[in-house]
């Protein structure tokens, strides 16, 4: 029951033996820092992304601690503003936009399509260096003096009024954008031209479809925000207010151009996670993804429609109400492809053989959180409702449900799923399962109260609320949840790192999954495959009925 027929070039029977894999192929620092191997670059990304996630999380902790008291606990307003900006900028530009595409995508896209590497390995390395430069600049700007413009950098505050390190931070975001563009170009060229023989478009794993759609958004959206932010740097440097009314500019134009990218950017964050979830659900249900074509095309539909909805961030910014109506309609329609995905995943589980390993628990958690995140989007898409809810904690909760509940849960699910493939080691699945439940519960405790606080009218980015003590109960609940959530994010670091030293050997296919990436060794060799794969069958060639029979005959769960 194999997905592929491999054409052995040497002897097909011989076991690979102790050949070099990509991790052992060179141990010097130089062999890592100048590597052109997509898998090593993915590991470099994994390390840097995790660092920034922890850092952003620390800033989030400070925010939550500060908000337990209506009159603030420790920080001055200025410091608080710098902290939430640092949290937002680091999390959005250095974690969410990068995590799944650059770590899992980099590692898996060539493996899944049977290529030896991405199309442009050197550009891939350049992308990591750009990311590192971006990260350093944003980090320096946030730590030495700080940035207080908020991660959205609305003009004219960011351009003419803020006295903080906005320009430096913007240069960082600009470079990060180019890192994103190079990744996108690489994925698109790779998916178009590097597929193994027989890997037709409709045999591509849904993860690859999602990465492809993500690449389109990265390519088309990122340059626009890059030029917009360049204009803000220009404004700050030359005192030429392009986006402020002093000389006749229009501050709302900045918001148009910013959200033209930054709304599709939300899909750069969640689409790859959708791909991960498709893979995980299908692998652990031992069943072909229900409605493959619909799931694949819904990714493209989201990528396309995602470009037509940016104005729903601007219903109260004096944008024309007629254009607002159009944006609202498309936003509602955009809910449909997301719904298609959720329904198809649910249907995939029906009549499967569901193995509740940790990646599956994370994926189920993802579905629960993303359902809430997506459905609360309906409140905000309804224009009238949005007038009351926009820029309140309702928005904060909504996008955390989408970004943390979507991207981070998807990232964790994917990381657990492919960890044996990436490192060749097995981690403690029992701890991971319980941790997934802790993250799910902690997350809900953190962000659900914020929905209520937002509905009651608590504005976001508020340092004090001593004039409205009724918000306190929700903030305390939220901080309690954040503590649990923080623990839930630290534990995986411990058991995953521990597995590197004490974990059992994973073998090629520990989960019994059917992707092309599971056909090669764990960890894969530098060339990815010892044989040139030729694909003759579907990617999700599972047979739940036969497997059920097999399990019954064995009388035991395959995983135990």
């Amino acid at each position, binding site marked *: 029951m194999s997905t592929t027929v491999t054409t052995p*070039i040497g002897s097909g029977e011989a076991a690979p033996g102790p050949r070099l894999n990509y991790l052992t192929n060179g141990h010097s620092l130089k062999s890592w820092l100048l590597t052109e191997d997509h898998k090593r670059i993915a590991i470099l990304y994994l390390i840097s992304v995790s660092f920034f996630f922890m850092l952003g999380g620390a800033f989030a902790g400070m925010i939550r601690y500060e908000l337990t008291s209506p009159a603030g606990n420790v920080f001055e307003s200025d410091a608080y503003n710098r902290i939430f900006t640092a949290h937002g900028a680091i999390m959005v530009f250095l974690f969410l936009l990068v995590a799944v595409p650059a770590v899992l995508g980099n590692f898996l896209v060539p493996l899944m399509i049977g290529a030896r590497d991405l199309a*442009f390995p050197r550009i891939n390395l350049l992308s990591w260096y750009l990311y590192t430069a971006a990260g350093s600049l944003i980090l320096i700007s946030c730590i030495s003096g700080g940035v207080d413009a908020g991660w959205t950098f609305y003009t004219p505050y960011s351009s003419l009024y803020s006295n903080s390190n906005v320009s430096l931070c913007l240069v960082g975001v600009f470079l990060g954008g180019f890192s994103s563009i190079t990744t*996108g*170009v690489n994925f*698109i060229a*790779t998916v178009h*031209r590097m597929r193994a023989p027989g890997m037709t478009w409709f045999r591509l794993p849904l993860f690859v479809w999602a990465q492809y759609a993500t690449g389109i958004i990265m390519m088309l959206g990122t340059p626009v925000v890059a*030029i917009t932010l360049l204009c803000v740097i220009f404004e700050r440097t030359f005192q030429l207010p392009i986006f402020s009314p002093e000389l*006749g500019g229009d501050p709302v134009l900045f918001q148009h151009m910013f959200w033209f990218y930054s709304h599709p950017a939300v899909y750069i964050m969640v689409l790859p996670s959708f791909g991960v979830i498709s893979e995980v659900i299908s692998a652990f249900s031992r069943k072909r993804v229900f409605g493959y074509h619909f799931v694949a095309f819904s990714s493209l539909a989201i990528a396309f429609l995602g470009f037509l909805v940016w104005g729903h961030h601007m219903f109260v910014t004096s944008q024309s109400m007629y254009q607002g109506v159009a944006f609202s309609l498309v936003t509602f329609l955009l809910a449909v492809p997301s719904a298609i995905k959720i329904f198809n995943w649910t249907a995939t589980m029906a009549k499967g053989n569901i193995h509740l390993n940790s990646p599956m628990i994370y994926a189920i958690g993802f579905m629960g959180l993303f359902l809430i995140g997506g459905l609360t989007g309906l409140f905000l898409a309804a224009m009238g409702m949005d007038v009351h809810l926009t820029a309140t904690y309702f928005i904060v909760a909504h996008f955390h449900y989408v970004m943390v509940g979507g991207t981070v849960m998807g990232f964790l699910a994917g990381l657990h799923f492919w960890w044996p493939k990436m490192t060749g080691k097995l981690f403690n699945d029992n701890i991971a399962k319980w941790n997934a439940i802790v993250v799910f519960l902690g997350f809900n405790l953190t962000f659900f109260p914020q929905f209520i606080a937002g509905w009651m009218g608590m504005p976001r980015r508020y340092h004090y609320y001593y004039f409205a003590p009724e918000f306190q109960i929700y903030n305390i609940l939220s901080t309690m949840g954040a503590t649990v959530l923080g623990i839930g994010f630290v534990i995986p670091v411990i058991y995953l790192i521990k597995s590197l030293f004490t974990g059992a050997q994973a073998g090629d296919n520990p989960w019994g999954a059917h992707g092309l990436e599971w056909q090669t060794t764990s960890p894969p060799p530098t060339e990815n495959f010892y044989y040139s794969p030729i694909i003759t069958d579907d990617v999700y060639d599972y047979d739940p009925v036969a497997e059920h029979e097999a399990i019954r005959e064995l009388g035991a769960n395959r995983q135990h």
Partner: protein
Amino acid sequence: MSAHGHADSPVKFQYEDIDQQNDTYVIGMWSFMVTEIMFFGGLFLIYTLYRMNYQGDWWKAHEHLDWRLGGINTANLLVSSMLMALAVRAAQLKDRIKVMTLLSMVVACGGLFMAIKYVEYSGKIVDHLYPGPSFTTNPEILHGANLNHAQLFYGLYFGMTGLHGVHVIVGMLIISFLIKFWYQKKKVVTEDYIPTELIGLYWHFVDIVWIFLYPLFYLMPKPFTVLGGH
């Protein structure tokens, strides 16, 4: 493993054959140029909006620009584009001397372009037409345009032509390296014309941007609002 990864083979190890590699390179380059289109597109958007809002003032401010210099540069880039295309053709024919000659002429055209830009810019800078606090307060220079709106105009003028100029300089640097590679008979370029073709694509793109910048900045029609006043 098959015969991939030889140091001097133009085929990189991740590709099956030269056709696949060339196809991939061309697709990669085109998708990169799509990002460039969107990059300049943002500036064109700002330009269009403010031009619509301040037609009269922008027209008056544009009177200070010299359409003849811009025209020379347009012709200059047009010739350089043709030379670039011919260089690619020579690369297809593996005619090394011809490629190097033509590419050198392309770089020379780029140099001439930047020299003319230098003349234009220095004239503006002498007149304090660069945006910022020291922007000129003399409306005579700007033919009576509102100084705020003229400053927006010159901000975008310097921004857009400056960004284009940066692209020209980058292109000249890349082409210089290309000439060096041809001179050193590097197999990357001599065995396969695609690297030359890709750099050509970039150079043509720079030309296309100027094709739009020229009429938008140098050849503004006289708007209705100004017409009526005379």
